[in-house]
């Protein structure tokens, strides 16, 4: 029995991604408010199929909120979100999620393997235990991020970068078509940065779509194919070569004079 919360009547299988089908993610007129202050205002966006997409914008621009609203984790004031042409509640098995590392309690008494196995829960469903096959899938996901040796380690005894890789492995274990990642490169060591990038490129090569909140303007053009410049509203969207321009970035970051992307944070 699958987790079909909110859609008990739905028995149809989720549609597979197809090159000419509906876009992986389509957002129409999305508005989200916290305490009556709009955080996202009338956002329209259609993600191209396949490829790595960066969501870029200043602090408080609503980047994380955009992801959470797409996933149904924060209430929408208005607007619609569709994943491969259908509401998200019917497409949960096609979605993977990497939250910010700080969003969970790393003192929790579970091993790295336990955490990665949680990515399989959507496939396991109610009342069934985590079988050996699911554990092997979780271990394989840990291998892909170079963390197989730490499978049994309690998660609090991993470094920040290792914890980030465990989160990434958990998303891989979800075997999704569309991934949402909230700052997977934030505060990680060089080895983890390389590992995360390799995973993103593998996912891209396998035809998956990855939407990442990303802070480091320097690396956007190197790491990603597309960018969505966001500051409450969508400022620009498209291939990185077209939208990562000084002019558009300056408009995104609130009209303050912006140095060219290459100079930001470089010093």
């Amino acid at each position, binding site marked *: 029995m*699958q987790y079909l*919360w*909110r859609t008990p009547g739905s028995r149809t299988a989720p549609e597979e991604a197809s090159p000419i089908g509906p876009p992986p993610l389509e957002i129409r007129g999305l508005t989200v408010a916290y305490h009556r202050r709009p955080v996202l205002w009338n956002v329209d966006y259609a993600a191209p199929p396949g490829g790595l997409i960066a969501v870029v914008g200043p602090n408080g621009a609503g980047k994380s909120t955009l992801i959470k609203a797409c*996933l149904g*984790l924060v209430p929408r004031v208005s607007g619609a979100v569709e994943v491969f042409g259908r509401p998200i509640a019917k497409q*949960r098995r096609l979605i993977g999620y990497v*939250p910010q590392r700080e969003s969970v309690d790393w003192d*929790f*008494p*579970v091993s790295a393997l336990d955490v990665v196995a949680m990515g399989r829960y959507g496939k396991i469903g109610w009342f069934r235990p985590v079988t050996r096959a699911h554990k092997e899938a979780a271990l394989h996901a840990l291998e892909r991020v170079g963390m197989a040796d730490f499978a049994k380690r309690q998660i609090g005894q991993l470094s920040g970068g290792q914890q980030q890789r465990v989160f990434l492995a958990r998303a891989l274990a979800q075997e999704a078509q569309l991934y949402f990642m909230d700052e997977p490169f934030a505060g990680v060591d060089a080895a983890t940065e390389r590992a995360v990038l390799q995973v993103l490129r593998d996912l891209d090569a396998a035809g998956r779509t990855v939407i990442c909140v990303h802070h480091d303007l320097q690396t956007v053009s190197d790491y990603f194919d597309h960018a969505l410049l966001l500051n409450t509203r969508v400022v620009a969207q498209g291939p990185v070569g077209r939208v990562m321009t000084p002019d558009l970035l300056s408009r995104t970051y609130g009209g303050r004079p912006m140095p060219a992307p290459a100079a930001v944070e470089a010093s």
Partner: protein
Amino acid sequence: MMPDVQEFLQIDAPALLAAVLACAACALVGNFLVLRRQGMMGDAVSHAILPGIVGGFLVAGTRETLPMMLGALAAAALAGLLIEAVRRLGRLESGAAMGVVFTVMFAAGVVMIEQASAGGVDLDADCVLYGQLETILWLAPTGWDSLRDPAVWAALPREVLTLAAVFALCAALVGLFYKELKITTFDPALASTLGIPAGLFHYGVVLLVAATAIAAFEAVGSILVIAMLIAPPAAARLLTDRLAVQILLSVALGVLAALAGYGAAAFGPMLLGASHSLNAAGMIAVASGLILALAVLFGPRHGLLGRRRAIGRLRRDPEAVA
């Protein structure tokens, strides 16, 4: 001088059974409060149910368990919703929201008791706090041989049967929803994206804590309930890094605290030559506190001594960083 067998079976055995079941049930559900960093919720729920108990009593007009239990559950559900509402609307952190809601509801319960007892109704605020473990009697058994008679077991006191049912309910629900409880406690956001209703599990845990607290508080009092919700899981957490082991260990430690505390209260003074006994619920809470203190000191990885040893090793041999 030890008490004779009949006295033990009629007075000590039912009280001990009630204490063991109450501690086991509280420890079991307490794990999820401690892991959700909502230990205060045990405090909140066990106090907020008071107006529900009094209300159930006043409406039904009897001291039957069922109406009081329903009233208490309703009060617990109300408290859960109010805490969430105060937290959101008042923009307070959840500890502050719980503090406001449970004190107000407990105060309302106390006022209701005062009003009711003015009308000649027999309800006592003290027994809410300390319970009445010593008044649980099992008059059926007359000796070890009588325990073979099913009729003797059928005459078990109502408090013991209620606690056994609640413990069985908790164990069944934790067993059935182990995976879901684990993920909604660790990462509710991911759980929601997988289609697991994290919010429903939050309220489910609150209601389960409430049901346990209601069943337990009549026998052992709300102070022991609060201690047993937190101390055994917190001690177990210091002894292991695995969730399933922690849960089993916390139940074992709860049972140990019940046995040690009751034993110390009932037989301790007698062995020392005193004629009176101590308050059992109080001694059980003390025992659970001692167990937690021992775990803090001697826990293998998280204990103070273990940590000091690890630092000492590191000083002698800085290369051997694990």
